[in-house]
């Protein structure tokens, strides 16, 4: 009986390893989460009624557009006639999906430490494939929407959402400002750890490697999580930019040793091989 019990437990243990391996991050997970979020917002959040002012602005815009189109048709305003064409091309590109991709906000709060690292820096990098990117591409939807204004009493969650919104929209400076505001006002919030990491990535995008390094170290100091792989990769990138190759190598080795199956491990190995 005990041998049978062992066999069952052996099978379950073996299966457990199989489940672990199948829980890795897949290319396109960020887009999947983005789609889920959009679907839920559509179903559960009623669209706010447009204010009279907004309606008036829309109406004025409509009248202006009709006027421009009419002028273009009459050949009276050749310079302005080009504008709708450009905008139409962008719309078509957005509809076709080119550049509509995105990096939805990266999040892994302390509670979500066991989350697979779905990150701003790996919007479409296959697991274990080439070098993950450290840039966040704006989505067509996000680019079209301005980051909503925040009042002085905004919560950590609201600041976090706004920072992500700005980042996804490609507004790096605003995303940095909002992230800094979050860290200054809510340093112990659940969002703070994740913010250090996303801020580090944003700083890398801005070419501020020293600031980026500080953010990745702050993330590490808070205990990290599964997103540690991304933090180590970011740290290595920052050290590389600073020309500190010995420390870069240490960070890459740590990444490969601690997270051999992470999306970044293959890129780290490749970089290690290239280092003298």
């Amino acid at each position, binding site marked *: 009986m005990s041998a*049978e*019990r062992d*066999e*069952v*437990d*052996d*099978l*379950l243990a*073996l*299966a*457990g*390893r*199989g*489940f*672990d*391996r*199948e*829980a*890795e*991050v*897949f290319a396109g*997970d960020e887009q*999947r*989460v983005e*789609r*889920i*979020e959009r*679907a*839920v*917002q559509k*179903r*559960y*959040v*009623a669209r706010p009624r447009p204010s009279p002012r907004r309606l008036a602005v829309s109406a004025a815009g409509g009248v202006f557009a009709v006027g421009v189109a009419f002028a273009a048709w009459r050949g009276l305003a050749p310079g302005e006639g080009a504008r709708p064409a450009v905008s139409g091309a962008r719309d078509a590109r957005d509809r076709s999906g080119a550049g509509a991709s995105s990096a*939805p*906000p*990266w*999040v*892994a*709060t*302390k*509670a*979500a430490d*066991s*989350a*697979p690292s*779905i990150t701003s820096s790996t919007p479409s990098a296959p697991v274990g494939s080439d070098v993950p990117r450290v840039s966040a591409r704006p989505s067509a939807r996000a680019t079209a929407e301005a980051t909503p204004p925040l009042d002085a009493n905004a919560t950590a*969650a*609201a600041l*976090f*959402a*706004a920072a*992500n919104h700005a980042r996804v929209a490609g507004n790096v400076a605003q995303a940095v400002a909002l992230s800094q505001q979050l860290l200054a006002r809510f340093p112990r919030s*659940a*969002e703070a750890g994740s913010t250090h990491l996303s801020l580090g990535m944003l700083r890398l995008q801005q070419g501020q490697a020293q600031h980026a390094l500080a953010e990745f170290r702050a993330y590490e100091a808070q205990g990290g999580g599964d997103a540690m792989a991304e933090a180590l990769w970011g740290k290595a990138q920052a050290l590389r930019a600073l020309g500190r190759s010995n420390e870069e190598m240490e960070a890459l080795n740590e990444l490969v040793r601690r997270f051999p199956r992470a999306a970044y491990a293959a890129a780290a190995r490749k970089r290690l091989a290239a280092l003298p």
Partner: protein
Amino acid sequence: MRGAPSEPERPDPLAALARAAGRGDRAAIRTFLVTVGPHLLRVARRVLGARHPEVDDVAQDSAFAVMDALPQHRGECTVLSFVCRVAALTAMQVRRREAALKRNALRDDGFDFEQVASALRSPDDELSARVSAEAVRRLLDTLPMEQAEVLALHCVLGFTLPEVADSSGAPLETVRSRLRLAKAALRERMRRDPALSPSVEESS
């Protein structure tokens, strides 16, 4: 422990966010879903199999189910455990529906136990692990729902038994008993299909 999400001693950092999301706060819903979305995908992949074509749909349905159920969450378990359980149950329903369709169509679950045997004997640890995982998933389809739930939360998602008890609202002893029954069913399945045994080579 594999991906066990709860730490009862600490306050649940997602609780306030979940409450705000449950009230329909747009920003909170966004942050909440971006936080739990990867977990929904992870659970769907664990229960269905990573390459299952319905992983995305199940993750989305799970998100709807979580949003519907959030107002009923009273903090008996962490929000993340709650989310994972909802996702696991949603995915298991899909598996069961598929299994029922297959049974009706073929009178056979189509699972090749010879393939399992050779995979378990394989020196390729990854292959053995993958095939064992699939065997456990097949078992989930056939167990009574309560036992399947315990087996899925404990063995597939890595919850501890107290976490399973907290999230399912069942007494700990009941959970233990359900797990015993699930393992007994697996043992019986292994007796009928010796190919499932990891030590099949040594015993033969």
